[in-house]
């Protein structure tokens, strides 16, 4: 009675395992990359790299569920026996944390030459490329349009605003930037004002964008790619670059960053991948794709639905300072999140 189902189960296991074993194939050089940029945008770039160089890419991607920090935490956990050669971070703060923990190795790519100094580590521990802008997504039926982050504290918008959980992702980075630019006292007062004005929290920028598009809230601070994707879906939303006035802070930019891992198993192919990611061609592809990333090299066409970088007033910041501030304000942010709204 038992024999054939057991045999069937065993055969199923063996066949499935054999199929899997056949998949990797070949003896071509391999580079291992951990990616916290969205897979849907980063995978095609890595496939192109494979096709153009013959170097096999084995990637680990992040998920929204780990708030895009899963791969970084894995790099930290694997510190004593690194498995990865390269880390493609979706913002420079994570790269900076790796530098501080001794997990990043210096590498100055020849393709980093055209990228402004404010977007890269001076010693080559990380290099930024292809940025997102932090913008306001506004529902078309919201009536008036907010034009500044300060609108979050304006009684006109009481109970009508949402923001991604500031403990995670680019929202944390931008709030840390506000602490750097304004000082702790003013930034804390602003955060308290948001709470008093009935701000709601969402799990991620993507969720915030969906909630605004669905009319649940009037506006939210999100990444530019979140807005562009909803525009392409013909959702009833507008994009607003915040704080563009003469005294305004400007729009905060969050570039991707690439890091060579210290004691990487394959550093040479790792450097080739870094060169590829920092090239103008890759920036152009990321600009044309649904990721709508803003190129940091001059002379590369930007995403069609976004203004060129030189037409937008941007926030002037130092990412190393922001990384240090971010870790310092985490306990405050945790209390702020837990205090309820």
């Amino acid at each position, binding site marked *: *009675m038992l024999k054939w189902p*057991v045999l069937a189960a*065993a055969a199923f296991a063996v066949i499935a395992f054999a199929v899997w074993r056949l998949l990797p194939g070949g003896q071509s050089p391999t580079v291992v990359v951990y990616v916290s940029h969205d897979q*849907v945008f980063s995978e095609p770039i890595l496939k192109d790299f494979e096709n153009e160089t013959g170097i096999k890419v084995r990637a680990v991607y992040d*998920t929204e569920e780990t708030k895009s920090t899963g791969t970084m935490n894995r790099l930290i956990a694997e510190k004593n026996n690194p498995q990865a050669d390269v880390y493609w971070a979706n913002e420079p703060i994570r790269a900076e944390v790796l530098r501080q923990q001794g997990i990043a190795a210096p590498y100055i790519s020849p393709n980093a030459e055209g990228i402004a100094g404010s977007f890269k580590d001076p010693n080559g521990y990380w290099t930024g490329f292809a940025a997102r802008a932090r913008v306001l997504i506004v529902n078309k039926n919201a009536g008036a349009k907010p034009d500044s982050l300060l609108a979050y504290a304006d009684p006109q918008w009481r109970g009508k605003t949402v923001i991604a959980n500031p*403990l995670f992702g680019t929202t944390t980075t931008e709030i840390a930037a506000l602490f750097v630019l304004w000082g702790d006292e003013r930034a804390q007062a602003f955060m308290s004002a948001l709470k008093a004005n009935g701000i709601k929290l969402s799990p991620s920028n993507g969720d915030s964008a969906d909630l605004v598009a669905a009319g649940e809230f009037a506006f939210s601070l999100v990444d530019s790619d979140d807005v562009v*994707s909803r525009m392409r879906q013909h959702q009833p939303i507008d994009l607003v670059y915040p704080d563009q006035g003469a005294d305004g802070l400007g729009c905060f930019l969050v570039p991707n960053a690439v890091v060579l891992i210290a004691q990487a198993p394959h550093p040479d192919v790792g450097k080739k991948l870094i060169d590829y990611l920092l090239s103008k061609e890759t920036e152009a592809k990321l600009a044309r794709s649904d990721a709508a990333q803003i190129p940091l090299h001059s002379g590369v066409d930007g995403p069609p639905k976004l203004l060129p970088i030189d037409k937008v007033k941007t926030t002037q910041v130092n990412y190393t300072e922001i990384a240090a501030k971010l870790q310092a304000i*985490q306990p405050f942010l945790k209390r702020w999140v837990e205090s309820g709204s």
Partner: protein
Amino acid sequence: MTERLILILATLVLALIGLLPVAAMLKETLIADGSFSLDAYRALLASDGQFAVLVGHSLQLSFLTAVISTLIGVPLGVLLGKTDLPLRGALTLLFTAPLLVPSYVLAVAWFSILGRTGLLGRVLPDAWSQEISSAFFGLFGCTFVLVTAFMPIAMLLTIAFLRTVNPRLENAGRLVSGWPRILLRITLPLMAPAIVFAAVLTFLLSLGEIGVPMYLRFPVYPVETLTQFAAFYDFRAATVAAAPLLLVTLIILGFQTGLHKRVLELGRRTPNGQVVVVALGPWRLPLFLLVLALAIVVVATPLGALVVQSSSLEIYKVALFRAGDSVLRSLAFAATSATLLAVLGFFLGYLSERRTLPIWWANEWLALLLLALPGSVIGIGLISLWNTKATSFIYASPAILVLGYVAQYAILPMRVVAASLGTIPRSLEQAARLSGAGWFMTLREIVAPLAGRGLIAAWLIGYVFSLRDIAISMVVYPPGSDTLPIRILTLMANGAPSLVAVLCIILIAITLLPLGVAGLWLKVGAKRP
């Protein structure tokens, strides 16, 4: 001698796979700057009132989910496993489907229906849709989604354990009473361990759930673990944050042990695998319509939303092109883990049931604790233990995933096999041994064939849970070897909803594949003379 040796070996395997990674993590929490320290635990206790609020939310959500899932799942299991209701097999498969999909995906599917601009929101008056949408984002929505996801556990365990009830007792009852009274006074009390186990399992799975509460903005305690990992990059604090979950598990386990002991003794006296079928008579059609309505609400609606989003064949081609490898890998990893889980579960289940070694209870406790631990903690433990130069060949290969699945889900096949063995009289084994058969021969020729259905169920349960796993896979999957649920999650960030929907449907299909094969086999087997 052989028996004791093999059972000790099985115990050691579970300890190696499950206990060592956790011990490695635990050690990290007790050492600060090279010396013993309880600072991380003190910091947890010193945290403000929010700790109690979050734990309260978690207990509230888990309790409601466990109670409602059991209250619906058990009667449903009885209807599908013991009556002449039409289309029982098809309905059982249909109700099982939500268990096969990551619950986060279910929440997204429900949002596309219940959200203010969702399918329902568009046809209802604005005030109503606003009301439903706000209720959905909170305890109500979380409980609703988790009940739809976990209710099949109570249903499936009820169907499986109905076979452990001695039909003679029910037949005796029929001489003096009708079926409703027999079910309430004889059948269900005899199955109490299975019902309690289903409730406990649902409680523990809900307790560790992160995706649905985060998506529906209901703050629960496991988010604390995630926050420590994701926001503070603090592995020590993250592991310590899992301690209250372990404490709750231990309390439940302690409570359950007594009940388990008392009632299982009764169930063990059931040598017959036959189920007495309840003829529903005039209630057949109304009950069928009721079950059908439930299936439409809790299964067809969210899965239908996925189907509506994936109506183009072109999307299936794109999905297979982009995720074909992940599908094959998922099949391979889940099948391998299921086979190991069934083999390990057989020996550990045998030990639990026959209690040959005095430490049988240690396996039960360890396995249940491993199920209750957040997968991310087990994952980090696996990294701490296996990511060394000497063991890279395991860590950098899919073996690490298989080890993780076996560790976290060992309790499931173990319990299923133990329940199955409970129906086999020991006298059969004793007779074989007296006739000169060794222990292995007795297992091979007597015990395993008689526990065949239980073993198949153990394999299937191991397969389903390994296939849908996210928490462990996310932390340790080898570079370039993602599984289908991971690919679904990574594509959910800005991926086309139609592509995500198709991948969910493929995930359901590959999960149902062996379930369908097993169902066919049972059908063919039943027709044989």
